C-alpha cells in the first residue's frame, strides 16, 4: 500500500495543511455531539466580530445511524474533520481543493463537482448556504457559508468545511467497506472500532433506559437554565445543551419520541442553545 495514505496519515496531512494556513489545531470536544458544528469551537466561535480559524477532528455520534457493525458504509460514530475559516477568504474553494491535493488526490485524474446542498440545524438555530462536494460521484465534504447561528445573523461569514474521513479514506484506499480501511500499517479500522459500533448500536436501539433518558433530559435542561442565570457559566451551560441534544438523539433511536413530543423537544433544545448564544454575544458586547 505504499503511496496510499493510511487513515491516520490522512488526518495528519489535513491537520498539517490547515495548520499551515493559520488554523488553530484543536483536539475533539469531549462531550457527545452529533456533528463537528456542535462543538463550541464552531457553535460559539462563529458568533461575534472576531476572526477565527480552527480545525479539529470531531467524532460524531448519530445513534439512529448505527447498524451493529453490519453495514459497510454506515456508522453510529464517524470521524469528521471540521475546518472553520472566519471570515471566509475569497479563495476559500481553492484552499479546499488544495487540501485534496495534500492527501494525494490528483484533481486532473478525477471529477470534482459542487452540488447545491444547503444546511440547517433547527436545534441550534443555525443555517447556511453551500454544497456537497462530489468526487467521482462520492460525497466527500460539506461546504457551508454560515448565515445564522444560535438565532443570530453572523457578523463575519465563516466557511465551514466538513470532511467525512471514513468515506474519503475508503475512497483513497479503494476499499468497499469502511471496516477494511487501514488505520495505520497493519491495523484495520475493524479491529479499532467494530466492537464499539456493535455494542453502541445494541445500546441505542435496545438497551438504553427510556425512563432514565427522560429524567436526564429534564435534569440537563434544568441545570442549563440555572447556569444561564449566573455570571461566568455559559460554557458549562453549553455542555448541558449538548447533553440534552445527545439524550434527545438516543430517545429518538429508541423510538420513544412521538409526533407531538418531537417538535416540542427540539424547541426546548433550541431555546437553550439560543440562550447560550445570546449570553456569548453579550459577553463580547455585541448585544446591547
Amino acid at each position, binding site marked *: 500500500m505504499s503511496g496510499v495514505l493510511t487513515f491516520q496519515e490522512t488526518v495528519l496531512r489535513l491537520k498539517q495543511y490547515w495548520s499551515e494556513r493559520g488554523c488553530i489545531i484543536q483536539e475533539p470536544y469531549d462531550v457527545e455531539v452529533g456533528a463537528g458544528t456542535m462543538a463550541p469551537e464552531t457553535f460559539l466561535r462563529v458568533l461575534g466580530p472576531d476572526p477565527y480559524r480552527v480545525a479539529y477532528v470531531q467524532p460524531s455520534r448519530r445513534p439512529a445511524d448505527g447498524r451493529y457493525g*453490519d*453495514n*459497510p*458504509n*454506515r456508522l453510529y460514530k464517524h470521524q469528521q474533520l471540521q475546518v472553520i475559516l472566519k*471570515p*471566509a477568504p*475569497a479563495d476559500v*474553494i*481553492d484552499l479546499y*481543493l488544495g487540501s485534496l491535493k495534500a492527501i494525494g488526490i490528483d*484533481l*486532473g*485524474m*478525477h*471529477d*470534482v*463537482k*459542487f*452540488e*447545491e446542498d*444547503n444546511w440547517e440545524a433547527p436545534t441550534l438555530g443555525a443555517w447556511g*448556504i453551500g*454544497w456537497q462536494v462530489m*468526487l*467521482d*460521484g*462520492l460525497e466527500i465534504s460539506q461546504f457551508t*457559508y454560515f*448565515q445564522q447561528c444560535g438565532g443570530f*445573523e*453572523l*457578523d*463575519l*461569514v465563516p466557511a465551514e468545511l466538513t470532511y467525512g474521513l471514513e468515506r474519503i479514506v475508503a*475512497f483513497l484506499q*479503494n476499499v*468497499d467497506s469502511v471496516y477494511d480501511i487501514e488505520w495505520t500499517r497493519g491495523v484495520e479500522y475493524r479491529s479499532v472500532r467494530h466492537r464499539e459500533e456493535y455494542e453502541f448500536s445494541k445500546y441505542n436501539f435496545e438497551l438504553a433506559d427510556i425512563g432514565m433518558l427522560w429524567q436526564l433530559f429534564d435534569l440537563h435542561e434544568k441545570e442549563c437554565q440555572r447556569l444561564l442565570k449566573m455570571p461566568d457559566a455559559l460554557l458549562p451551560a453549553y455542555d448541558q445543551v449538548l447533553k440534552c441534544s445527545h439524550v434527545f438523539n438516543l430517545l429518538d433511536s429508541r*423510538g420513544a*419520541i*412521538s*409526533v407531538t413530543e*418531537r*417538535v416540542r423537544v427540539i424547541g426546548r433544545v433550541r431555546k437553550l442553545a439560543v440562550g447560550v448564544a445570546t449570553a456569548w454575544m453579550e459577553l463580547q458586547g455585541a448585544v446591547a
Partner: protein
Amino acid sequence: MSLPFLLEIGTEEIPDWMIIPALNNLQDMFQAMLDQHVLGGRVTGTDATPRRLVLGAEGLLERQADVEELVLGPPKSVGAGAAAGFAKKMGTTPDQLGTQSTAKGEYFAFTKRTQGQATGAVLARELPNLILKIQWPKTMVWNGKGTERFIRPIRWLVALLRDQVVPFEIGGVKSGNTTRGHRVLGKPSIPVTIQNFDEQLRTNGVILSAAERRGRIESGISAWRAKPDPDLMHTLVYITEFPTPILGSFDRSYLDLPHEVLITVMRHHQKYFSVEDADGKLAPHFIAVMNTNADAEGLVRHGNERVLRARFNDARFFWDVDQKKRLEDRLEDLKNVTFQAKLGSYYDKTLRIEKLVVDANAKRAAVLCKCDLTTDMVKEFTDLQGIVGGLYARAQGEPEEVSRAIYDHYKPLSMEDEIPTTTGGRILSLADKWDTLVECFKVGMIPSGSRDPFALRRAAQGIVRIVVEGKMKFDFPGMSPELSEFMRDRVEYYFRDVRGFAYDEVRACMATGWTDLIDLEGRLKRVQVVRTTPDFEPIAASFKRIKNILKQAQFSDSTFYANLLEPGPELDLYEEMRGTQGQPLESRIGPLRPKVDLFFDKVLVNAPDANIRRNRLALLQSLLTEFSDVADFSEIVTERQS
C-alpha cells in the same frame, strides 16, 4: 458609431435549476435599462455555466444624445427681478434669456441643453444595482452582516464596452477584462476581449454555450441506449463547464432488485442516465457525466462504479431488513410519523382514508398504503414512497389489485404523469388526495397566490384528472364552501387550459352544474359540436335576451297556461317546445331557432294585460329551464352581443 458590450458575472457554483430564470431576468432588466437611458442597442444573447452568467449586447451608442428643452419662466410683465431669479435657477444670466409668446401672453424662456452622458459612465453607474437585483429563490451574504446579497459569492466581473473596461465594483470585486477558466482544466486568470472571449474560455476548459454542452453530452452518449431523461439532461448541462460522459457497469446480480429502486438510485442520487438493452430492458450499465475532459486512467469510472455498488448494497440491505416486518405490522408505527403538525399523524390519515373507500380490496390497500413510510427503503429514497409499499405488498402476498393500488396511489405527480392504471389505484389516490384537501381546508391551510406549501393545487388537479380520465363516480363528499370554490377553479382550469375547451363553453356548462365531472365533460363535448352549427349562436343570443327580460321583470315562475297562449308565433313556439321534448339538444336547436326569432319579432312580451304578460314570461322561463340542463347558453359569447 455603435459599440458591442459584454458582461460576465463570475461566481461560485450556482444551483443548476436557478440559472435559466436568472438569465432571463438579467436580459430583461438590461434591455430595459438600455431603453430607459436611451443608450441604443439590444441584448444579443445570454449564456451561462455554473460559475458564470454572461450577457452580450450590440449597437450601443457611444454616448446619449444631447437634449434641448424649452423652459418657460415668469411672465415678461413681472419685470427684471423675476427674470434674474429665473436666469439664476437656469444657471445662466438674464441676457441669455429669450421670450416665448403663449395664449396667456409673453413669457421669459430658456433653452436648456443637457449634455448626453458617455454610455460607459451610465453603465458603470447602473450595473452594480442591476446585477444585485437579479431575482433568486434564496440569497446569501458572504462579506458579513448587512452586505450585498446574491445567490453565491461574486468572485470576478468582466464588463467590456468595445475594448474599454466599464469600471464598477460589487462587494470588493472590481470589474475588469480578466476571466477565469475551469477549476482544473483552465488558468485562474485570463485577459479577454469581446472578440476572443468564447475562444479563450474554450482554451481554458469552459464551453460557454449551454447548447453546445448539451450537444457534447448527446453525441457522447449516442452509442449507448441511454434512457431519455430531459430533466436530468438539463441538470447535467448546468452543473458542468466541460461535460464528458463515461459508461460504467454494475454487477448483473443487482438487476434482481426492483428496477424502480435501481433507477432512482442512479438518477436522483448519482445523476446517472440508466441504460437499456436492445429489448428496452434495464442493462447493467450507467452513464455518468464528468465535469472534465477525459478519464485517462479510468479512475473516475472506477470511483463511480464503487459508489454505485455501495448504494445498491444499501438498497439490498434495506430490502432485506424491511421484509422482517410486514407492512400491516407497521401500522402502529405510523402514529410516530407526522402528516402535518395540525392534522396529526399518518395513522390518523390512514383511518380517514379507509373510511372514504368502500370495497374490501380498497380498504385493505388504504390500511397499508402509508406503511412504507416507516421502511428504511423509503426513509433513504423518499421519491419511492408508494412504489416501495406496492412492491412490498406484492412480495408479502397481498392481492395484485391491492399491491397495484398502493404502488400507484401518489399518481399523477404532475400534469404529464399518468393517472393510476387500475380502478383500485384510482380510488385510493382519490381518497388520499381528497382527505388531504378536506383536512387542510378545515384548519385554514388554503393556497393563496404562489403560496401552496402542501401542493394542494396539484392534489386537486390530480383528482380532476383521475375522475375525468378514469371515468370515476365521485361526488366531492364533505366539501366546504371554500373548498368548493377552490375545486371549481381547478375544474375550470382543467377543461379550459388542459383540455382546450373555449372559456365561455366551460363557463356555460359549469353554470348548469360541475360536480359530476363525467356529465360535465359530456355536455362540453356536445356544446362544442353544436356550437359550429349555424343556428347555435343566434339561439344563444336569444337565450341571453330571455335571461335579461326575466331578470328585469324579476320573474322566475315557469308555470304557464296553454289556453292563454295566442295563436300564431306564440303558440307555434310552445308547440315546437312540446313536440320535441325529450329529444337531444342537437336536433332541437335547428327547428327551434326560427320559432324563437319569430316570437320576438311578432309577440309583445310586455303585454298590457297583466295575465298575458305573466303567462309569456312563464313560457320563456320554462323554455330557458328546459334548455339549461346542458349549459347556461347565456354565458356563450356571441357576435350578436347586446
